[in-house]
């Protein structure tokens, strides 16, 4: 029994300690941002904040949630995430159901499958895409954040593989009872797939919430940015034109605390859905990897 040997016990202690340190290293930057966001200006600017707030204050959060552009971008991000996720799931469910059929049942399945998969391995690149968006008059429109991402081929494949695991007998029985293919999809397959849809939906939500590049290049007014794009311009390119400070505020707030607060609010929805996500995503990866 190797478990009981002294060398293994020594190894085990070192190993566990090492992995715990590694695991903490994964969230230390996040904890640091959290600490800075709740710290006083003087402490943040003097760089003495570590992993715990120094001279606790919520000034930075007060300023952030009173900034109409920040609130607006938060709203747009919520809107795109909800609508976008719904669109992705709807389009993917329909396509995945048809593609989950065997060649014998759905002639043309392989052609469609290749049309889908080819988009994963080749694309026209940034410039032609940009021109298409322009020609469709989608520039500066909310829908530019939703429509181009409507088909997520990867999620469609995962869902297709999930549908394939549903016993064929259910479909056959429903057909004998006179159900249409749409009826089978909406009344049998989708209700049976709720856990899978929840998983894929969470992935789609995270993807939408995190998307920032589309907003940056297709939308020109800051008021119309989703949160991720807004954060990109404020924190990375350091464009502060959307914020105005009074002298009193200037004394209380530092760029550091303000940025940290905005970063933390931006990360918060992900942190909130993360426990649910974690419960599902191991399963999700497994769905995707089981073949035939």
């Amino acid at each position, binding site marked *: *029994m*190797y*478990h009981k040997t002294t060398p*293994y016990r020594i190894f*085990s202690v070192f*190993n*566990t300690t090492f*992995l*715990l340190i*590694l*695991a903490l290293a994964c*969230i*230390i*930057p996040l904890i*640091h*941002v959290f600490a*800075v966001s709740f710290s006083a200006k003087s402490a943040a600017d*003097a*760089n003495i904040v*570590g992993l715990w707030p120094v001279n606790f204050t919520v000034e930075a959060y007060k300023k952030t949630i009173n900034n109409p552009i920040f609130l607006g971008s938060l709203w747009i991000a919520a809107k795109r995430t909800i609508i976008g996720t719904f669109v992705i799931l*709807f389009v993917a469910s*329909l*396509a995945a159901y*048809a*593609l989950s059929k065997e060649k014998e049942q759905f002639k043309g399945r392989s052609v469609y*499958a290749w*049309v*889908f*998969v080819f*988009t994963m391995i*080749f*694309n*026209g*690149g940034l*410039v*032609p895409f*940009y021109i*298409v968006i322009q020609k*469709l008059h989608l520039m500066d429109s909310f829908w530019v954040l939703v429509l*181009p991402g*409507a*088909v997520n081929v990867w999620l469609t*494949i995962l869902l297709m593989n999930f549908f394939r695991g549903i016993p064929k007998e259910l479909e056959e029985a429903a057909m004998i009872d006179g159900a249409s*293919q749409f009826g089978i999809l909406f009344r049998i397959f989708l209700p049976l797939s709720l856990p899978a849809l929840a998983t894929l939906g969470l992935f789609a939500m*995270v993807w939408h919430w995190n998307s920032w*590049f589309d907003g940056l290049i297709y939308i020109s007014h800051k008021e119309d940015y989703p949160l*991720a794009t807004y*954060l*990109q311009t404020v*924190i*990375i390119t350091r464009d502060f034109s959307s914020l105005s400070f009074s002298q009193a505020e200037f004394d209380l707030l530092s760029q550091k605390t303000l*940025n940290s607060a905005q*970063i933390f609010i*931006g*990360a918060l929805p*992900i942190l909130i859905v*993360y426990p649910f996500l*974690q419960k599902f995503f*191991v399963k999700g990866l497994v769905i995707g*990897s089981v073949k035939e």
Partner: protein
Amino acid sequence: MRTLRRNWPFHLMVLPALLFLIVFNYVPMAGITMAFMDYKPWLGFSKSPWIGLDHFRALFEREDSIQVIWNTFIIAVLKIIFNLVVPFTFAILLNEVRKRFLNRSIQTLVYLPHFLSWVILGGILVNFLSTDGGFVNRMLGYIGLGPVFFLGDGNWFRFTVVVSEVWKEFGYSTIVFLAALAGINPALYEAAEVDGASRWKQTRYITIPSLMPIAVVVGTLSLGNILNAGFDQIFNLYNSLVMDKGDIIDTFVYRTAIIEGDFGFATAVGLFKSVISMILIVISYRLAYRWANYRVF
């Protein structure tokens, strides 16, 4: 005709996705003709003059584009290697943590960064790694090192990019190995135990060989990323100080097109990347199929 009558619901179901794919994927693919044009927005596709392979010739002659291709390659290859080796090792070590609570807690923490965007992480890291009192440099200061210009020096920048990518992704990449570990037949270990094999010998002769097939698949499939150095990450971390060592194809295309408006050349550079990536993806999937019977469909 008879099959169409029976199959129309399926065609109808695929239709919405198909339309979106045509508009947002296939129409732009037709736009790659720009790579062979001296494209002027005011002339459009029909009137802009054709110039053949001039853009591609420029791609291999301009010093900046050659440098960019090299940067992309070196950063991407380092990322691929470390994102295979680190999760592989981590999975084996984590497998030795028998306390369920500890094991689960470690997993929960290491998966997290994968789900945060590079805007958030970039914002965090710029502060965290700054030489002006950033957390890491403060810690280094305590032990008498630094300051290190993580994001302000070309060579350090590459190091930072690779390490932070691995930091963000290694946990998530571990999942597939943990799944493979869970699938190893316990009878193998029991037999080894009876033969008196130490835990190291069991790892060496059972665990590692059992993980090899999946490692080969993961490694092979990542070949397609050899020109993918990570736009989101670089774009949110780089600055003028590290342009020479840190600029990659995707950021170069972005600047050439959106900032400088040189649409034709930018498309050509992008096309170069897309074509090489496509060839590598096709080859890698063939290899993965041949070596490990791996299939997407």
